């Protein structure tokens, strides 16, 4: 750097770059707003996700199409699927093959090891507090809360044959479409009320969808 140009030169160029970039950004958001609404947390089938493409202008915006060919722009979505198999888990993500009858893909669920550690520390602390009579009632309540907090964070109880709610966004990597899930909820057992509730919401949303 010292040989080719002085410090001033670099700063000049940097400023130019920053100014130009800002202008571009301002322009693209303007035209985007006039063009289409970007949805968050919309109910989708896995086929919608498999069909989705990335918006070339905006980061983390995806475009999918409904059956009439109308485009749907979205950042995040909610799906409901059956756990048909496991992918290769690693230290930070558990991977599951999910299937909703319209398609199947691999979903990654973050393990959040930091959060898990905090919760298990709190859990141990509260359990030791519970041994004294004065704190017992509130300690029991806290234990229940921490247990259900753990259920929302730790994906390891997810088993083959369970069904899952996932909220997240598509993940395109080397031509393969998967899903990054930020939140999950396990729905197992005889009652299919949650599945039916979601199916009802999903079909309604898409019937009422218009540009």
């Amino acid at each position, binding site marked *: 750097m010292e040989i080719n140009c002085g410090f001033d030169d670099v700063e000049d160029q940097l400023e130019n770059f920053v100014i130009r970039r800002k202008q571009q950004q301002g322009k693209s958001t303007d035209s985007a707003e006039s063009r289409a609404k970007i949805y968050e947390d919309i109910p989708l*089938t896995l086929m919608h996700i498999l069909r989705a493409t990335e918006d070339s202008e905006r980061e983390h915006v995806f475009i999918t199409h409904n059956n009439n060919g109308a485009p749907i722009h979205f950042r995040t979505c909610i799906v409901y699927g*059956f756990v048909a198999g496991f992918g290769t888990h690693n230290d930070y993500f558990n991977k599951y093959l999910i299937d909703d*009858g319209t*398609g199947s893909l691999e979903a990654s669920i973050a393990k959040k090891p930091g959060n898990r550690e905090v919760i298990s520390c709190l859990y141990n602390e509260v359990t030791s507090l519970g041994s004294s009579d004065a704190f017992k009632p509130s300690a029991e309540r806290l234990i229940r809360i921490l247990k259900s907090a753990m259920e929302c964070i730790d994906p390891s109880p997810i088993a083959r044959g369970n069904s899952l709610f996932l909220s997240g966004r598509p993940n395109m990597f080397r031509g393969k479409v998967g899903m990054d899930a930020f939140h999950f909820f396990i729905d197992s057992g*005889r009652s299919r*009320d949650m599945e*039916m509730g979601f*199916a009802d919401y999903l*079909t309604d949303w898409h019937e009422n969808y218009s540009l």
Partner: protein
Amino acid sequence: MVTLAIVHSFVSHLIFYGILEAFSKKVMSQVQVVAAPNTPEYCHSFKTLLVEELELQTSYLRLHYGQCAIIGRLALKSAHFWLENVRVRSLPENYSLPEGAVSVLLLGLTREKAIEQRVSTGCYCIVRGEVVLCNVLRPNSPTLTARGVHEQFGSLAHDQIAQKQFISKLRLTHKPAVDLWFIQSIDRPEDLLTLRLKIRGMTVR
């Protein structure tokens, strides 16, 4: 072949002028369908099907090829597990069969497995697995799939009578069945089926 050539030159003309690209794609895909034998594509997801769609399929060439999810009532007949149909409420009255009118054979479900999965005869289930054709005369012989039927049918292309005989013979020896991968007992089967069919209708292209 002559008409194909005409369509082809017509299409290349359109592409040359860069007009009606979508239309030309459509024509091209139709040309390919005509030219290539239409071997079915494997369905990699558990598509919602009806017991009726398997059991009442008259031509095994049109049988679903791949994975499926079927809702029905579990039954035990002659030492085998079967899945009986449930009423499809979204169909008009005169098209919907009463519950238990038809049933499809389940492969790979034993009494032990049924106990393990907490299902018993008479309970409503959702079954996930693969559609196969099972030889009913020789129960332990290998199963067929829609693709296998297509390939054997295609290999007889020189002889149309042999093709017809092959299909009608197959109907006597083979029955559609589901090779079971998952089974789960469920509540409110008719409601669930109605909603799952609605999603199927929504995602069919």
